[in-house]
C-alpha cells in the first residue's frame, strides 16, 4: 500500500472545489457532550454541533475554559481516560467514529485526521531527530520502506515550508527554532495526508512574524483540499484564514457564521465583548472592557475616582497633564537607561549579547512600551532596569540619581520607588502564603520593621491591604485564598496590588498580560491605565504583543537582537514605521477586519 490513496481523496476534493461542486463533508459533529468526573459536575462541552467540508477551515474560538480544546480532542478520541463522551453523531468523512475502541482510533489517527498542538517543544521527543518522529506515522500506517519514508518526510517538511529540509531533518527538536518546530509538527500531521487537520492553538506560542508564516502554511494546506478545524482564543488570528467561525462559551457554541459575519456583525453579546477587548489599533486611553468589568464586582467605587478621559490622549509628556498655569518645564525623567549592555555565556563558551547598547528615557507619568520578539532582550532589559542583574556596561538612573551602579545595600532604601509586575505571577508569589500574607508582607517591607509591631501598626497594615485590594478591584473575600485558587486575572490583580504596596513611582511590567485571556487582558490593561492616572505612575511596559503595546504606550521602543532599532511616539511608530524590522513586525500582526 502506498500513500497515494489518501492523497487521491484530498486532490479529488480540490478538484471538486475547483469545479464549484459541493465538497464532501469531512467531519460532522452532532450534539457532542463531554464531561469529566462526577456525573453531577457540569459538562465541559454541552451539546456542540458543527460540520466541516473538505477544503474548508472552521475556527472554534473561545476563552480558556470554554470547552474548545476538549471539543477538538474528542474529534480524535483523545478526550482523556476520565471523560464521558456522548454524541448523536461523530463522523469522519461519513464514517461514524462514535465509541470506537482505542486500537481502532489508533488506526485512524494520523491517517483520517491529523493533530497539530500548541506546544511543539513538548510534542516532539527531544531525543529523536524529527525525520524519525515524522517517519513514525508512515512506518505505522504504510508499508513504505526506509528510503521511501525518508523521501516522503523530506517532501512533507518541504511542503510545511521548512527551508533546507535535508539539513534540518536529522536534527532533534531542541536544535530547532520555535517556528521550525511548529513546521515539523505540521509536517508530522500532514505526513499521511489526512483529509482533516485539527490544529489546537497552533500559533499561540510563536512570535508574530513566525505566526504569520504558519498561518500562511495552514492556508496552503487548506487550499490543497484538506479540511481544517482551527482552535484558537485569538479572533484576529482566526480572521486571517478561517472560512467560518464558531464561538464557544461555557461549553456551548453561542454563535456561528462566516468569518466576515462573526467579526463584523457579531450577534451574541459575548462575541462582541471578545471583539471589543482586542487591543490592536485601539488608541491609548480608550477602554477595552465594559466599564463595570474593570474593577471586579463587589467593591463599590465613588465615581469621582474614575477620571474623565479624552478620546485620544496626547502622547508623552507630563506637561500636557500638569495644570496650564505652571510653566512648561522639562519633564522629569523617571527612569533612564544609558548605553546598557549585557552578555551571557553560551553553551560553547561563546558570548551572546542579550542587550546591546540600549538607551531609553521614561518621562514621569508616561508609558514607555518595549516591544520585540522572543530572544530580543526585552526581559533582560527589564531585569537590568530593576537592577536584578548587573550590566556589563552602561547604567540605569532613577529619578536622575544613580540606581544600577549602587551597591544593593544602598539601593534597598530606594527599592520602594520601583514596583514590578511579572508575566508568571503565580511563580512570583511565595507558595506558602495567602493573598493576605502576600500583601501584608509587601506593605511591611516598605514600612520597615520598626513600625511593624504593636496593634496600631497591625491595624495600619490591614487598612493599607484593604486599600490596595480596593485599588485593583478585588473583593476582600479573596484575602484568605491562596493564589493557586484564583483565576489568572485575579492573580495578576494581586500581583499589581503587591507592586503598588510601596507606593512606587515607577512600575516595570514584563509581559503582564501575556498569560491572560483577551477579555481579562482588557480588564487588566484598563486597570493599569486607570491606576497610572490616579497614582501618577510611570510605566515601563514590556510585551511581545504589538496590539497591547500600541494600546498602552506613549513612547515605543522596538527591540531586535538586543538592540533598540526604532523609537518614537506610539502614533508615529505604528503609523509610519521607519525601520524595516518594525515594518515587518507590523505587517505580520493579524488584524480584525
Amino acid at each position, binding site marked *: 500500500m502506498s500513500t497515494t490513496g489518501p492523497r487521491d481523496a484530498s486532490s479529488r476534493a480540490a478538484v471538486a472545489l475547483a469545479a464549484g461542486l459541493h465538497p464532501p463533508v469531512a467531519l460532522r459533529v452532532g450534539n457532542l457532550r463531554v464531561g469529566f468526573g462526577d456525573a453531577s459536575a457540569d459538562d465541559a462541552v454541552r451539546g456542540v454541533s458543527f460540520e466541516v467540508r473538505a477544503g474548508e477551515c472552521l475556527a472554534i474560538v473561545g476563552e*480558556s475554559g470554554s470547552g474548545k480544546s476538549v471539543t477538538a480532542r474528542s474529534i480524535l478520541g483523545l478526550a482523556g481516560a476520565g471523560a464521558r463522551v456522548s454524541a448523536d453523531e461523530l463522523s469522519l468523512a461519513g464514517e461514524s467514529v462514535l465509541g470506537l475502541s482505542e486500537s481502532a482510533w489508533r488506526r485512524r489517527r494520523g491517517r483520517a485526521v491529523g493533530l497539530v498542538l500548541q506546544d511543539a517543544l513538548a510534542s516532539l521527543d527531544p531525543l529523536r531527530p524529527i525525520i524519525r518522529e515524522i517517519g513514525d506515522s508512515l512506518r505505522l500506517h504504510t508499508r513504505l520502506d526506509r528510503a521511501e519514508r525518508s523521501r516522503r518526510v523530506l517532501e512533507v517538511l518541504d511542503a510545511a515550508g521548512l527551508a533546507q529540509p535535508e539539513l534540518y531533518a536529522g536534527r532533534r527538536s531542541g536544535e530547532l527554532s520555535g517556528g521550525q518546530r511548529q513546521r515539523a509538527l505540521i509536517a508530522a500531521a500532514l505526513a499521511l495526508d489526512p483529509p482533516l487537520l485539527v490544529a489546537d492553538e497552533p500559533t499561540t506560542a510563536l512570535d508574530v512574524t513566525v505566526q504569520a508564516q504558519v498561518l500562511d502554511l495552514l492556508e496552503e494546506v487548506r487550499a490543497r483540499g484538506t479540511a481544517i478545524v482551527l482552535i484558537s482564543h485569538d479572533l484576529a488570528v482566526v480572521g486571517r484564514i478561517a472560512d467560518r467561525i464558531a464561538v464557544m462559551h461555557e461549553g456551548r457554541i453561542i454563535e456561528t457564521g462566516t468569518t466576515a459575519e462573526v467579526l463584523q456583525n457579531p450577534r451574541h453579546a459575548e462575541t462582541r465583548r471578545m471583539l471589543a477587548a482586542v487591543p490592536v489599533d485601539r488608541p491609548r486611553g480608550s477602554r477595552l472592557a465594559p466599564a463595570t468589568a474593570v474593577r471586579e464586582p463587589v467593591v463599590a467605587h465613588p465615581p469621582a475616582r474614575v477620571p474623565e478621559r479624552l478620546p485620544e490622549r496626547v502622547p508623552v509628556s507630563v506637561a500636557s497633564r500638569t495644570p496650564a498655569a505652571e510653566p512648561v518645564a522639562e519633564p522629569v525623567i523617571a527612569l533612564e537607561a544609558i548605553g546598557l549592555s549585557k552578555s551571557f555565556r553560551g553553551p560553547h563558551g561563546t558570548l551572546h549579547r542579550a542587550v546591546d547598547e540600549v538607551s531609553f528615557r521614561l518621562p514621569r507619568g508616561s508609558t514607555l512600551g518595549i516591544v520585540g520578539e522572543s530572544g530580543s532582550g526585552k526581559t533582560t532589559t527589564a531585569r537590568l532596569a530593576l537592577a536584578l542583574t548587573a550590566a556589563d556596561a552602561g547604567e540605569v538612573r532613577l529619578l536622575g540619581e544613580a540606581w544600577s551602579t549602587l551597591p544593593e545595600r544602598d539601593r534597598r532604601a530606594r*527599592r520602594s520607588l520601583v514596583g514590578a509586575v511579572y508575566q508568571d505571577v503565580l511563580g512570583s508569589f511565595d507558595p506558602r502564603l495567602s493573598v493576605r500574607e502576600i500583601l501584608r508582607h509587601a506593605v511591611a517591607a516598605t514600612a520597615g520593621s520598626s513600625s511593624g509591631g504593636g496593634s496600631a501598626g497591625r491595624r495600619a497594615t490591614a487598612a493599607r491591604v484593604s486599600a490596595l485590594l480596593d485599588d485593583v478591584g478585588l473583593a476582600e473575600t479573596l484575602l484568605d485564598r491562596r493564589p493557586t*485558587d484564583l483565576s489568572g486575572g*485575579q492573580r495578576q490583580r494581586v500581583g499589581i496590588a503587591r507592586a503598588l504596596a510601596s507606593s512606587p513611582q515607577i512600575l516595570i511590567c514584563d509581559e503582564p498580560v501575556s498569560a491572560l485571556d483577551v477579555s481579562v487582558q482588557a480588564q487588566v490593561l484598563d486597570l493599569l491605565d486607570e491606576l497610572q492616572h490616579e497614582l501618577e505612575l510611570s510605566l515601563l511596559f514590556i510585551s511581545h504583543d504589538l496590539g497591547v503595546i500600541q494600546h498602552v504606550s506613549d513612547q515605543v521602543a522596538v527591540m531586535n537582537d538586543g538592540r533598540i532599532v526604532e523609537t518614537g511616539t506610539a502614533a508615529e511608530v505604528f503609523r509610519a514605521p521607519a525601520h524595516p524590522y518594525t515594518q515587518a513586525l507590523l505587517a505580520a500582526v493579524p488584524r480584525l477586519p
Partner: protein
Amino acid sequence: MSELEIQASATGHGAGRPPASAGGGFGRMRVSVVELAAVLVAVLLLTAAIVPRLLAPGDPLAIDPLAAFGAPSWEHWFGTDESGRDIYTRVVDGARDSLLIGLTATLIGLGLGAVLGTVAGTLGAAVDFTVNRFLEVLFAFPGLLLALLFILVFGPGPGSAIIAVGLSTAPGYARIIRAQLLRVRSSAFVEAATVQGLGRGRILTRHILPNTLAPLLVLGTLGIGQAIVWAAALSYLGLGAQPPAAEWGAMLSAGRTYITSAWWMSFFPGLFIVLTAVCATTLGRSIERRMRHA
C-alpha cells in the same frame, strides 16, 4: 471500600490541574483505605511504644523453659523463643526501642543534613565547594559501612547505632536540602522579594528557609522507615541493641539460628520491621501529596 479509594485518586487527579476559575479552594482530600490502614498501624505502634502493657500485659523477659520453641497458638499468638519467652509480648515491647531508634536517627540525619545543606547553599562558593567535597567523601562509603565504621570506633550499643544511622543518612539529606535551597533561591518569588526591597537576611528567613525546609517533613517521614530497617540491620549484626533486649533487629538475629525449626522467631519481628517501614513511608507519601495540593 474500594470505591472510597477510587474517589480519593480521582480527587487527586483533579487537584493536579490548576483550577480554571476562582470557585473556592479544593475540599479536603478524601482518605484512601491504604492511608486509613497506615494511620491505624501507626496508632497501634505508638500505643505499643508508649504503653506496651496495654496491648501485652506479660513480661517480655519472663522465661518459661517448658514452653520453649512453641509454635503460634491461642496462648502464644506469635509463638515462643528458645527460652520460652512470649514473642508477641516481646514484639510489642520492642516497638519502643525500634521506633525510638528510627525517629532519633532520622532527626540526627535531618538536623545534620539541614545544617550542612544550608551552610553550603548560603555561605558562598568556597564553603559550598568544601562542604560538597566533604559530602562526596561520605558518599563514597556505602551508608551501612559508614555506620559500621562509627560503631567500630565507639563500640556497639543502641546509642551508637542511633548516631551511626543518623550520620550515614545525613549526606543524602544535605544534598537534597542544598539542591532545594538553590532552586528556591533562584525562584521568581525570591526575586520579587528583592524587588520589594527586602534584605538578604530577611529573604533567607522569611522565604528561602521555610520553602526549603517544609518538604523535609515529608522526607523525614520517608526516612524513618529506612532508619528503622538500618538500625534493625545493625542489631541483627550484633552491633546495636544486645540480646535479650526485645529489639526487633536483635530478635530477628536471635531467631536466625532456629529459622528451619522455629520460623516464627524471625518472622514476626521481621514482619513488624516491614510493617513499620511501609506504614511510615505510606504516611510520608500521603503527607507529601497533600502538601503539594494544599
